[in-house]
Structures are given as C-alpha cells and as structure tokens.
C-alpha cells in the first residue's frame, strides 16, 4: 500500500539529518551551512509526515507546515546576518572568522 514503510521513512530521515549535520559541521561557508540546516529541518519534517501517515493523523502534516515556515524564517534570518556582516565591512562567508566576540568593528 504505502510505497515506503515507516522504517524506510525513518532511515531516510536519519540519513538526511546526518548529511545535514555533517554539512553544518564541516562546511565553513555560511550559505552552505544554512542549506545544510534546511536539510536537517526537512529530515525532521519528514519524520513528522511519516509518523502522520503511519498513525493516520493530520497533526504530522500540520507540524510539517510549521517546520516549513520555521525553515523559511531561519534562512531569512541567516541571510540577513550575512548581509549585515557584509554591510559592516567583513566581506566573507567564512563562519570561523567571526569568533572574536567583539561585536561590530567600526572603521
């Protein structure tokens, strides 16, 4: 009936989550890190959808919509931070560069 069993769904979600986590951990480019975060969020959303299909409950799909909105917001905020950094005179996407805990550098 179901093209995917729930176990397969969970396996796929885990793989996606791991790929996303690995992307967050190893990539230094902030755009790619945001994309990896989205992959992780989608993995969790997939778990919700799969669980909703498994127990025939619409709540899972509602949660998916919420996570979608959350992901959009998160990406927007992340990109806004990157733009801010560009505006403050730090034209780089390297995430490790921002470890000085010094706030904005003027001049």
């Amino acid at each position, binding site marked *: 009936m179901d093209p995917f069993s729930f176990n397969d769904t969970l396996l796929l979600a885990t793989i996606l989550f791991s790929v996303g986590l690995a992307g967050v951990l*190893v990539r230094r480019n902030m755009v790619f890190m945001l994309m990896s975060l989205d992959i992780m969020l989608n993995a969790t959303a997939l778990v919700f959808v799969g669980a909703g299909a498994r127990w025939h409950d619409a709540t899972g799909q509602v949660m998916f919509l919420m996570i979608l909105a959350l992901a959009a917001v998160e990406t927007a905020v992340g990109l806004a931070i990157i733009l801010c950094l560009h505006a403050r005179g730090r034209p780089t996407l390297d995430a490790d560069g921002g470890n000085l805990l010094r706030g904005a550098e003027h001049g």
Partner: protein
Amino acid sequence: MAATFCGGRNMGEILLPLLVLCPLAASLIAFACAGRVGAGGIGAIACAGVGISAVLGVVVSAILLRGPATGALQVMLWPWMRVAGFSADIAFMLDRISMLMILVVTIVGLLIHVYAAGYMRDDPGIARFFGCMTLFVAAMLVLVLSPDLLCLFGGGGGVGLCSYLLIGFWYDDPANTAAARKAFYMTRMGDVALLCAMLLLAGATGSLRIGTVLAAVANGQVSPTGVNMAAFFILVGALAKSAQIPFQAWLPDAMAGPTPTSALIHAATMVTAGVYLIARLHGLFAMAVPVMALMAVLGALTLLMGACVALAQSDLKRILAWSTISQLGYMFLALGCGAWQAALFHLMTHAFFKALLFLSAGAVIMRARHEQDIFRLGGLRHAMPGLTAAFVTGASALAGLPLVTAGFYSKEMILSGVWRAHFDLTHGWGAGGHPLWGIGLLGAFLTALYIFRCIFIVFCGKADTVATGRTSRLMSIPLGCLCVLSVCGGMIEMPAPLPRPHLFSAFIDPASLLPHVDEPFWPVLAGAAAPLAGVWAAWVVWGRSASVMRDMPGRPMRLLAWLAQHAIPGRAIMGTGRMTQATSTLIFRARTGFLDMLGVWAGRSAGWAGRLLERLHDGRMRRYAAWIAGGLCAGLALAVLS
C-alpha cells in the same frame, strides 16, 4: 591609734597608684614636649616625675611600717578579665619586699635622672631619652607593685621595651641597634618561659594572684611535678631577665646605650627584676628543691665566670657590666640557697654601689674625651680627685672591703646563708652548701682583684691622659649621695654571728630572726680577708709593677684573656643560634619546596583546565554545533542503552 592607722591606710591606697602615675605622666609629657621645651626643662620634668614618686614612696613606706609586719597595702584599680575558672585584676600591692624595691627604684632612679640631666644636656634626642627613662621607672614600679603574676608580666614587658629603646638610643650606629635587639630577644625568651610557668600555675590553681598561688602550693593543691616545672620555668625567665648563664650575653652589649641608661638597667631596674621575682615567690621555690640546687649552681658558675671575664676586659664599661653579672650571680646563689633576704639585701647595696660606679665611670669617660680603654687612661687621680674618690668608694663597696663599705655586709649575709644551706635532693642524699661557699669566697677575691686592677691602671701611675672640662654640679651631687649610701647603706645589718643590729632581717622577714649561736666565726673572717687579699694581689700585679705587666694581663691571665676574647658561653650561644637558624632554614626550604610544588601543580592543572574550557568557547559556531550534536548523541545513547 587604730583609727589613725586606718586613715593612713586609706591615704596609702590613694598614693600608691600615684606612685606609678607620676613617672608615667612625666614620660608622656617628655614625649609630647619633644622639640618644644629645652634640655633643662625636659630634665626638670623627668626629675620631678621620679622625684615625686620617690617622695610618695617614702610616705607610703612610712604608712606601711606603722602597720603590722606582715601587713600589706592593697589597691584594686579595676578588674581586668573574668572568665569561668580564672580572673585577673589590675591592682597594686605594697608589702615589705615591694617596699624595699620601690625605695631602691625611685631613689636610685632619681639620682640617676638628676645625673642624666647633666650628662645628656647636649644630646639632641634628650626628650626621647627622658621619656624612655621615666617610662622605664614606671614599668619597673608596675612590675614591683603588682600582686598578680599577669600584671607583673605586663610590667616586665614594659621594662623590656624600654631597655630596647634605650640601648638602641643612638640608633645611627647599627651595632647599637643590634645590641638592643639582642637584649630584647634574650629577655623575650625568658618571658616565654615565664608565660609557660604562668599557664601551668593558672591551670593548677585558677588564679595568678601571688598570694593565692603560694597558698595553693603550700596546701599541696599542685602536684610536686607541677611545682618543679613551674619553678623551673620561672627560674628560666628570671635568668634571662637577670643575664645569668646561659643568657648572660646581652648585658655586656647593653653598654651601647648612654651611661645613665646602663646605670639604670644595671643598678635599679632591669636586672633586679629576676631576683625580685624569685624572692617574691620564695615559698614556691622552697617546695622545688632540685630547682633551688640548679639555681645555686648556676649562680655560683655565673659569679665565677663574670669575675674571670671582668678580670681580662680592657673596656671600663664592660668591666662594670661583667661585674654586674657576677654580682647577680651572688644574688642567685643566695636565692638558690634559700637566703632570699640576703639576696634582697645585696640587691639594695648593689644598686647603690653599681649606680655609683657607672655614673662615676661615665663622668670619667666623658672628661677623658670618650676614651673607654683602661690602658689608654692613666693617672687620672691628679686631674679629677673627686671622681677618683667616688669611683674608689664604689669599687671598695663592690669588692666588699670589711666594715667600711655596704658591699661587705650584704656579701657576708649571702656567704653565711650559703654556708648554712643544705640541699635535700633525694631522701637520705643531699649536698651541703660548703663548696658553693668556697666558690663565693673565691668570687669575692676575684671581685676585689678585677676592680682594683681597674683602679690601679686608670687612676694611678703616670698622668698620661689629658682631662678636659669639669664635672657639673648636677652630676656631682648624685655621686655624693650614692657615695654616702654605698658606705653606710650596709651598716643596718651586721654579719650573723655578730651581735646587733640586724635591722634588715627584722624589717624584711621577722620570722627569720633566729639566733645562730652555733656558727663558727672563722667564715666571717675568711669573707673579710678575701677582698683584702684581692686588693693586695692587684697592688702587687698592677699597682707597683713595671708597665710591662700593666699592658698585658700576664701569663696566668692569658687563659682568662682568651676566655674573654673568645667568650665561650657566647660561642655556645652563637652555635645554638646557628643551629636554630639552620634548622629553621631547613624547615623553611622544606615548607617552601612543598608549597612551591603545590603551587606549580595547581597552576599547571588550572592551565590545562583553562585550555580545555577555551576549546569549548572558542567562538567557532561549527564547534558549538559539534558539541551540541555530540552531547545530544551521548544523551540519547544513555537514554536508549540504560
């Protein structure tokens, strides 16, 4: 009569605190007026303070003497502390022993102050000098008048402090400050022992009032071991205060101070404190026979050693310093033999003649352009006949020339007390005092020998010293008074086998007035002959002989010279001191090494922990994420697996 006596008593109780307050007030005024009042004014203030105190001393003594022989004036000023099982008061008590002491302290102190007003006239630090001197007298009066061992200890602390300040009075010279520190440390060591004794007694009897303690000891409330220990510790304290073996090293160095200070320390105040303390507690010591024997032996050794070293010294003031140690040895010998009355009598006469010797020596040195080496002085009898007479009077009293000097009577009293002594150390085995008497007699011979050596070298012979100036009236009047006291002060007490008068014994301890009819008379004659033999020997060796003999102590004296130069007791003390120092350095190193190791390890581990924490917070987002993921995984694994 009773009513008037009661009235006198009340007046005495008012006057007794004033006795201490006058020198104290004079001291405060002198310190406060430093730089505002001239030298004469400061001297007058100090003399007035001590003089009023002396007058008050005479008045309260008269009041006391009108009462019964065992009576005492007691004044309680205020309670000091009250805790469960122990209490202490600030109080004064005047009985016959302390009466003798206050008379000696105030009268001799007054004469020394008058002299000092002339002697120190041109010194810029005269206000500081007189402030310390009067404070010294006040502290000594507190010590003497206190009925409580704790108060007495406080007075002893004040005396130690003032001696430190006065010995190091000319603090520009490091040698003087070193001498001051030495005196302070050595007397402090004795104070530690005294404190141990006080703790023992307070623990055993619950009080430190001397009367209570003595009664408790007499009743057997304190175990014999406790009594022996307490007596031993008090003895150590007294030995340190009175510069006896093994603490004798500080007194000769105390010559670094001005001469009136030396006179005050040696004659009236500081060194007599130990003798007074033991005489005051003689009831306690009577129960501790081994300690008494130890005291007598130490006193005998000290008197011999002091006399021998004085014989080989060439510094006039140092000769007098060693003679003080030797004479204090006599007093400790008497105390050890139980003849505390004799010790107090000798304390009194010694105060007279030693003050006289120091003051006249100070005047001689001042007029001989501050030359202290006796071999560079000579023939002074032509230039300063008055001072020569004063010095010879003091020296005769020190030597104890028979019948005409005070020293003879007190020395006879000590020697007869030692002759009678018997130490019952264990049951059935004891030792008599006759060997100690022999040592005392030898000491009397040596005393006459060294002091007349000094006289023959300094005052006789060719006049090769240019004397300058005159002795001022302020300085010569006290010398005259002390001369009179040194000659007549002893005639109140005839040697025991002779008939009356025995005024001193009757005054200080009427119970001791027992007829000693069975005593042979020849010890008295021997005691009279020994000083004469000493004077004759000194005349043979130094008086009439060629100058070769004069400059050198001579072949038999070489050993003594060696003794003095190398100062074996001093060496021993130095050795002990070095050992202590080495031990403390070792302990210090061990301690610092351990602490260093601890510190280094603590620092290193803190560094490691810091670096670990730094890894956690290096500001790299990806690492934070990794930590979060790792922690999450660990938490999940824990939840799943458990």
